[in-house]
């Protein structure tokens, strides 16, 4: 990134809205629909200002009819439009999943490439504020498991804007997951490190390319969204005791940039993977497996810090105990040291 002459710090919410507005200005085919995304500007702020600028024709509040509007997104996209659809919380997708994994994700393949389905689905993920198990999940693996959709999840506003622009321009369906604690909405608390400089002009961040957000030599910490911030905080603390941690922000779950991870682990010989999604059958196992398959000699058994395999509890003591954290990453590192 070039050094900006003037800092222009945006939240992820504003960065997403800016990207959408810029694409809507230049591409008539782009439109937005979802619940409360019109005059309200989205419960999480990522469509703020769009209704004022583009009106109800292109920024459409929907009834609470997800089965219908997910299916409609597939139909509109197949007919030449580029819908951006929001469903507030990732936890709500159960009511409309069929249109996603049986149509949106498969029609290009089924049609031998005759049909393209350029939909962007935006949805919020994550917990930490005691909203219980139907409003706090991440479900990264649920989407990433199913072939035919790209899945991106930014950890900061710069990536959010660039990934959104790339998603809108992509001819494939893209799931855009934004973590509530990083969104920059004060009422959900705000991770300050997610609010970064965002250039005003349009740009893309390539989908499927991880970023090394902190270089190091002793251990590789891999994460996405909130996991990256836990990783960075852990790395800062580890640095105080002379441990040099490399932190990788995957940015995309699908396609998954295994090469960047493998290259880093070749250097460090130690791997910790962080994920706020449920532990089993998830991102952590996928990354560790991808490294194991390479036969890279490791200095210690890899570790994972993920959400235990339980529904997310409401009460603060239980939820905070279950969530990944910088301290848990440090504990994982200590375990590796002990076992080396």
């Amino acid at each position, binding site marked *: 990134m070039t050094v900006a002459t003037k800092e222009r710090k945006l939240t992820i919410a504003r960065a997403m809205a800016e990207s959408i507005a810029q694409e809507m200005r230049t591409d008539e085919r782009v439109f937005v629909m979802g619940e409360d995304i019109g005059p*309200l500007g989205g419960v999480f702020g990522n469509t703020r200002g769009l209704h004022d600028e583009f009106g109800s024709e292109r920024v459409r509040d929907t009834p*609470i*009819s997800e089965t219908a509007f997910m299916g409609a997104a597939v139909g509109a996209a197949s007919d030449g439009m580029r819908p951006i659809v929001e469903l507030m919380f990732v936890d709500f997708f159960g009511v409309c999943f069929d249109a996603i994994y049986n149509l949106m994700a498969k029609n290009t393949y089924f049609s031998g490439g005759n049909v393209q389905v350029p939909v962007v689905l935006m949805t919020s993920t994550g917990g930490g504020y005691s*909203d219980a198990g139907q409003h706090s999940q991440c479900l990264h693996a649920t989407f990433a498991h199913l072939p035919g959709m790209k899945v991106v999840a930014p950890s900061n506003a710069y990536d959010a804007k660039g990934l959104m622009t790339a998603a809108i321009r992509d001819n494939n369906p893209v799931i855009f997951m934004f973590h509530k604690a990083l969104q920059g909405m004060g*009422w*959900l608390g705000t991770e300050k490190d997610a609010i970064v400089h965002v250039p005003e002009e349009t740009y893309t961040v390539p989908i499927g390319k991880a970023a090394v957000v902190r270089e190091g030599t002793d251990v590789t910490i891999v994460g996405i969204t909130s996991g990256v911030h836990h990783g960075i905080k852990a790395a800062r603390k580890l640095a105080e005791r002379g441990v040099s941690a490399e932190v990788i922000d995957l940015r995309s779950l699908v396609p998954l940039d295994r090469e960047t991870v493998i290259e880093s682990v070749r250097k460090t010989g130690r791997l910790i993977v962080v994920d706020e999604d449920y532990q089993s059958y998830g991102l952590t196992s996928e990354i560790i497996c991808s490294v194991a398959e390479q036969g890279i000699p490791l200095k210690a058994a890899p570790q994972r810090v993920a959400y235990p395999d339980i*529904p997310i*509890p409401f*009460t603060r003591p239980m939820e905070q105990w279950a969530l990944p954290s910088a301290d848990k990453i440090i504990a994982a590192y200590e375990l590796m040291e002990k076992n080396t």
Partner: protein
Amino acid sequence: MKPNRNQKLWMYEQMHTSRYFEECIEKIYMEGKSPAFNMANGPIPGEMHLSNGQEPCAVGVCAHLDAEDIVTSTHRPHHVAIAKGVDLDRMTAEIFGKKSGLSGGRGGHMHIFDADVNFSCSGIIAEGMGPAVGAALSRHLQKKAGVAVAFIGEGAANQGAFHESINLAAVWKLPVVFVIEDNAWGISVAKNTSTAIEHNDARAAAYGIPGHFVPDNDPLAIFEVAGKAIDRARRGEGPSLIEIETFRLAGHFMGDAEGYRPKGEKDALYARDPIPKMRQHLIDEENWSEEQDQELVHRAHKRVDLAIQFARDSEYPAPEEAMEQVFV
């Protein structure tokens, strides 16, 4: 069937209990959340959907139900839970996330379960309807008494689950009643911009079942209509659909700036507050005195105060209890 004096007084007292409960929750919810409003903080964290104004729906329907009857409710469940007889102490403790709560703190305000009175709720829109149909089916198969009532908001009437559940209940002639609390708003989206018809009771015709519309948030009228529908279900004649015109006096959830409301809407709604109206009715029709009123209100408030004290005094669960009630 009009309510008798005792039924009216029961409804009136439940409405006071419910309203005062929400007023207390509203205050406590704000503890620890200023100057910066962050949902994670305070004794009651997370989202909070208050039911102020919607009490008539709960009391008018639940006046006909016993503990054995089944009720499913929504993300806005307190008024219905109170009218259904959910243990108020343990429900309050659950909302505070305490060990003594109905679910030991795992569920919170959107996931209140009290199996003793067959009450449950869910934060996913319209998703209480299928389970209500299933509970009715279970009673039918077991030849056990009891009806099921699914409460939903008017926004939920546009969900697939709404239409599928009514059709299923109708073809199987199950003892279930669907109650729509039409408060005119689904978060910021007005009913008339999201729903193709004015009143959802008309949709009953599509499934060949009786549909009823109750205007003006009137507990006495709700009582009559709900009585008819529930009796019909108990007689084995099948489901009914009721839409009640109600209103929410609060925001969608705590922290909602309510910028979407037309100017003056809130004041107009407060002028139609069902609780003072019911009080006036009791004075006019039931020889209700100021003293009797004070006594009833005092009793209702006291019950709530004790429940809140119980919740505050209760301990938090140990963090590791998160791993209980589940297999890993």
